[in-house]
């Protein structure tokens, strides 16, 4: 035997499943890439610039905050890239880049670093950033542009390049000039809510509508979700619960008054619900760890989304629903602790 044999001491288990935090996060990024690609395809270079600005700001912010707090940089764990991409995807295509940078800085600073970084954030950082700009720039964040404009790959949407700290220009003239058909400037949700004009579900699925950069094609989002669920890198129960909650809540209203209230299919595939259900509500850090808690949490988000949509002043409620879900997720986890194997008097088969 080799007399120089050096043995080391470790505690059991001595084997390790080969899934790391980095791998999970990197796979979420992979699942998001088709969504990003479609967003760029639909809205052009403005969205490309938007995604780059949010992601770069987030990455730089993360490394800056790590340095300030004297911790080793956690940029390599990829989680901040998810935050950057998701944030970009939730903003309107023509959102001024300087405002996007503000949103990203708030996301990484207030949403993540302030709590202690990955694993300690209470809410989804991307949504914290978006909620901030929703309040700070209410006009810009509800200014929509049509998808599939001819000149989208050669020309920025004028509002994109707004100088820092300036208000973006009004887009009505530009849209009129670019677009053959009349463009109302409203998302399917707004059309439905204020004018009772429906949008075909087929268009919602394939992304032929307007809306935030990454929320328009439900199919591509679902495909990403299926990929993550198959790799067990996302809890499938969360999107299922959110969608189920939303569909079940909207159903009775639609049955009562199908003109005023949207049908459940429209509810599922319009607005940010799909993106939120698949990629944001399922944020591991901000959702409960307990199996029953996951159902409570996801159904809560689905129900709340529809209530905000139908009865609130806003057309879309996913963001606040998820943030509220995040906020109560520790409470949900506390009251839904798993039932221990062989817990006294609780064995259904005893």
């Amino acid at each position: 035997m080799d007399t120089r044999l050096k043995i080391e001491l470790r505690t059991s288990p001595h084997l390790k499943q080969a899934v790391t935090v980095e791998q999970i996060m990197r796979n979420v990024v992979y699942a998001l890439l088709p969504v990003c690609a479609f967003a760029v395809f639909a809205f052009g270079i403005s969205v490309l610039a938007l995604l780059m600005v949010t992601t770069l700001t987030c990455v730089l912010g993360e490394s800056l905050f790590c340095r300030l707090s004297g911790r080793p940089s956690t940029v390599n764990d990829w989680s901040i890239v998810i935050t950057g991409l998701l944030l970009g995807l939730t903003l309107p295509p023509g959102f001024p880049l300087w405002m996007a940078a503000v949103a990203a800085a708030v996301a990484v600073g207030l949403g993540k670093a302030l709590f202690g970084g990955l694993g300690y954030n209470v809410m989804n950082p991307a949504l914290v950033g978006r909620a901030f700009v929703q309040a700070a720039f209410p006009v810009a964040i509800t200014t929509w542009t049509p998808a599939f404009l001819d000149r989208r790959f050669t020309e920025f949407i004028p509002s994109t390049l707004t100088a820092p700290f300036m208000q973006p220009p009004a887009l009505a003239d530009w849209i009129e000039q670019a677009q053959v058909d009349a463009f109302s400037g409203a998302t399917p949700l707004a059309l439905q809510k204020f004018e009772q004009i429906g949008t075909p579900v087929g268009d919602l699925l394939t992304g032929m509508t307007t809306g935030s950069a990454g929320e328009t094609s439900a199919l591509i989002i679902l495909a990403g979700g299926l990929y993550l669920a198959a790799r067990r890198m996302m809890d499938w129960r969360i999107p299922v619960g959110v969608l189920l909650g939303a569909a079940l809540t909207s159903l009775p209203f639609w049955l009562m008054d199908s003109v005023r209230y949207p049908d459940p299919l429209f509810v599922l595939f319009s607005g940010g619900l799909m993106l939120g259900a698949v990629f944001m509500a399922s944020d591991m850090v901000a959702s409960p760890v307990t199996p029953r808690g996951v159902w409570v949490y996801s159904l809560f988000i689905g129900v709340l989304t529809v209530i905000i949509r139908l009865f609130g002043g806003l057309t879309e409620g996913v963001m606040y629903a998820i943030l509220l879900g995040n906020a109560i997720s520790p409470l949900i986890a506390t009251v839904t602790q798993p039932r221990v194997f062989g817990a006294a008097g609780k064995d259904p088969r005893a």
Partner: protein
Amino acid sequence: MGILNLLRRNTFEHGVHPQEHKELTCRLPIRRLPFAPTLIVPLSQHAGAPAVALVTPGQEIVRGEPIARADGFLSVPMHAPATGVVDSIRLMPTARGPKTESIVIQVYGGSSQEVLYDAPHDVDSMTPEQIIQAVQDSGMVGLGGAAFPTHVKMKPPPEHKVDTLVVNGCECEPYLTCDHRLMLEQTDDLLSGIHIVMRALGVERAMIGVEDNKMDAVEAIAGRLAENSPVSVHAVKTKYPQGAEKMLIESLLGRRVTSGSFPSSVGVSVFNVSTLAQIGALLPRGRGVIERVVTVTGPGVRNPGNYLVPVGTPVRFLLEFAGSTPKANELILGGPMMGMSVASLDVPVTKAVSGMVVLEASDTELRDRHVQPCIRCAYCVEACPMHLNPSTLGLLAAKGEYETMAREFHLNDCFECGCCSYVCPANIPLVQYFRIAKAINREKAA
């Protein structure tokens, strides 16, 4: 629950699927290991009171003769694993950590090493009490790894009516194949051991559970069973920790042992196949446990195999015999999920050591990664066979709230299978946190 029960047949909820690596040794027949020149027999290699030495330094001993007696009911005697002379009785290192009083034996190289110590029993005419006494006299402990004195388990509390003997042939730990080989090669010993223990327990039924990655063992056993035999053999799903008592009882019988209770509370006694095979072989002759099958394996071993090893053989001798690779980096006694890595090659193989797994540096890379914060992925919650919440327990442990862990989060139901640490993507040593928490709680209570 009817349909759910059907779907869940032959397994339990949660658990993990580590790579098995059993192909290294599962086809290699059991071979006898030569005697090491020096054997070290710790007086405490079982749960309970240490044995009391019966020999003195300088005394010649014959292989198989008792060299230490049991100290009370919760204790077992020791037998000489080889013919030789007692060198000394002194503190020696053990795998568990603290040094333990041990009988050090210089083996006679020229001896034939025959077992000359016999006290034959007519098992069929023995009363249950006599069988239990004979099992204690043989020094038998749970050879699956628990090392709990076997005769104690044969005497369940009187208020528990035991109706089934569950025979544990799962061998769910990766790498290990000693029980697999034993079921194939010592099937008759196993079955006679089962009948002896059934008589002692007064049960009408025995169920052998074997993971379905060992169908050859299932067939070998089934082939020896008479029609209408009270013994039956069942393939259960290959999943770690299928071989944990409570898991196996649920898989075979659909009964759940209540938190904090013994299996006898649901009418079951669980024995490991290697324990029963040794009872079957030793009891009729009145002999003691002096050797056991140990799987020596892993990427760091040149000649993996299933070796019949005298109790007390130093790990160094075993490793020299099997050969190690230059990159060998960690040496584990037991399986890789629950076994202990040893700090010194001078520790001996004891009765409960089922394997020696040698890993190379490349095998431990993932274990050595830096620890990241918990991202609440809930992998551990989905893995824990006891349905605990390791994620929250881990956060509490980091804050030192050990009492809360026990009081509100069922820390004491954790049997340290290691599934949580195994799946944790952040590489948090969860189960080690829980061991520490339990130890501190025990200390506080004392």
